[in-house]
């Protein structure tokens, strides 16, 4: 009998790596304390987090008051969210009549449904839905929000306000600027010298001046530009200003999209005998539009943030209406809560959209070899 009992017949399983290179400790060694500089940096960062976060968390969550109906409910010394809670409806809907608020809700619900449809992959009829969003929905939204027909009471625009006004301004700005942007971008790439130079001048002019002066111009000068009996609503004037301004930025986004389409696509379309507009509408733009979506979302984010400037011309957007609420003698001294609330709302919207746009960019990046 061969006595090989001391020899193993099977391999032992691998020992786990030393505790210092796996698990939490290993991860920490690799990512936080890999050398002296890094360790110092880590400790410094931890200290920074500590001094920033502890008071903030305690102020926002632990020592804060959430329910109540007057400032007397705020006793614990932290944030008084009662102020925001009590005026929440106003912050959302402005001075819109209470009985009609369902119209705003319905409008935005419809919009959200359509946008979700477009965003979620694998749903059919995207083209149709997109057409509805761009063409039918704005008319519907106008009648819903403003009223004046179908038995809906007219709600004057000076009663609009709050977050819904901010959203209306931003969405109108983007949707209405899109067609102008496409035309300007096509013009800028055109071979006709006058058309080209007109578009370049237009785009560079609007991109060269601050939105504040555009809004000033819209509120102060626009009425002087038109005949006396033509009278624009203040909101409409702000919108005109924003659309003129935004179409220049949109044109640059569209131009970027157009440039990303390989030359072969243009040549192939021309070889098929398509004329300029057919080539653009059926071949180039559909491809380019897809590539432009991240850019459009980014412009939308920028515009969404910039709409807070309308408070300077006296429209009650989210920021302005919170500021107005802060001056109510019953609620003096809660400006930090008010501003924090506005910042949070803006942040949630912008962060969400920017994540979506990054996600799209990644998707296009892998799917398309055209870049």
């Amino acid at each position, binding site marked *: 009998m061969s006595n090989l009992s001391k020899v193993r017949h099977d391999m032992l399983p691998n020992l786990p790596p030393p505790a210092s290179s796996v698990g939490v400790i290993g991860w920490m060694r690799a990512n936080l304390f890999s050398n002296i500089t890094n360790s110092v940096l880590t400790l410094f960062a931890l200290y920074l987090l500590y001094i920033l976060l502890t008071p903030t968390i305690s102020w926002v969550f632990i020592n804060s008051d959430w329910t109540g109906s007057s400032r007397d409910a705020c006793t614990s010394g932290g944030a008084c969210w009662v102020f925001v809670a009590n005026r929440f409806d106003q912050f959302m809907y*402005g001075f819109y009549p209470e009985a009609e608020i369902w119209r705003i809700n319905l409008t935005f619900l419809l919009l959200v449904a359509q946008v979700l449809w477009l965003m979620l992959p694998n749903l059919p009829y995207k083209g149709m839905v997109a057409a509805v969003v761009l063409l039918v929905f704005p008319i519907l939204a106008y009648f819903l929000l403003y009223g004046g027909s179908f038995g809906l009471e007219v709600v004057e625009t000076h009663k609009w306000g709050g977050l819904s006004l901010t959203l209306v301004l931003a969405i109108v700005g983007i949707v209405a600027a899109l067609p102008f942007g496409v035309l300007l971008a096509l013009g800028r790439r055109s071979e006709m010298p006058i058309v080209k130079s007109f578009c370049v001048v237009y785009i560079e002019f609007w991109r060269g001046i601050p939105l504040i002066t555009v809004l000033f111009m819209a*509120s*102060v000068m626009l*009425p002087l530009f038109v005949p006396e*009996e033509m009278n*624009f609503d203040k909101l409409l004037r702000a919108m005109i200003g924003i659309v003129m301004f935004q179409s220049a930025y949109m044109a640059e986004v569209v131009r970027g999209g157009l440039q990303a389409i390989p030359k072969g696509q243009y040549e192939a379309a021309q070889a098929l005998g398509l004329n300029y507009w057919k080539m653009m509408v059926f071949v180039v733009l559909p491809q380019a539009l897809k590539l432009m979506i991240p850019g459009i979302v980014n412009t939308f984010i920028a515009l969404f943030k910039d709409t807070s400037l309308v408070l300077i011309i*006296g429209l009650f957007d989210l920021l302005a209406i919170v500021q107005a609420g802060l001056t*109510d003698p019953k609620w*003096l001294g809660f400006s930090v809560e008010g501003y924090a609330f506005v910042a949070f709302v803006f942040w949630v919207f912008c962060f969400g959209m920017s994540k979506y746009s990054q996600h799209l960019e990644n998707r296009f990046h892998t799917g398309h070899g055209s870049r």
Partner: protein
Amino acid sequence: MKKISLMAASAAMALSFTGLAQAAGTLDSVKERGYVQCGVTTGLPGYSNPDDKGNWTGMDVDVCRAVAAATLGAADKVKYIPLNAKERFTALQSGEIDMLSRVTTWTLTRDGSLGVNFTGVTYYDGQGFLISKKLGVKSALELDGASVCIQAGTTTELNAADYFRENKMTFEPVVFDTSDQTVKGFESGRCDVLTSDQSQLYAMRIKLSNPSNAVVLPEIISKEPLGPLVRQGDDEWFNIVKWSLYAMINAEEMGLTSKNIDKMMTKGNPNIDRFAGKGITSGLGISGDWAYQIVKQVGNYGEAFDRNLGNGSPLKIERGLNALWNKGGLQYAPPMR
């Protein structure tokens, strides 16, 4: 090429469109529209301030309501357009609003070069200083070197500069866009004093978290007659706005209030009858009972003052210069006959 002529034709059409311009007067467009467009502040307690439902109240607001009552017979047919100090005149010039009732000081250059006309004085005001009690300052003449919070684009800005220059003092102007921010700047200690029209100082003081810490200095450094204004070139409308205010003042003088006017009218007093439109044609182009409607729906000057600025309000401002002429003040209206 025909296209060119087509373009020319459309340009000509555009021109003729402009030609139509001057046709309609303000009164006609107000009647057609069904409401008065009135420019007010973005929020100043006592003068024009929206509550959390968006209903506007205040002295300036009551002037708008009086004009609506006179022209349309209903005081609530007003569209309030909140304006900041910078855009108020252009809003009026451009026709966005029919009248501006927004704590605006009547001055020569405003009447002369802005293309506007002041119709009267709703409140005789003067510029003063609000200062923190603990600085121990008793007079504005001790303010040499102080930082002064001012709201941008107002006569206050010019008056303050003049005052300090006149008294050989220096100051540091800290200019804010809205009155709220001015108060906030003052409260944070950015400046030692806040200067504004005195009545506004009282309104601003109640916005401080501890109003009793601040005092209004006795000096009044300027005359600030505040009143409503209209565009130049429409005398009919100018008269209506002017007389809407005078009706309120006359009503107080005659003892007519919103509560007693119906009863007073039955007494056969010829003055009151004329006031209510009996046996008199005003020639203003509006309904004969316009003055009655103002008093019935808005009240007389004294009622409006008390409700918005005086003892019936948190501001508790004395009548002072704004008492009637026969009670030691300056408020005087031409007779209605």
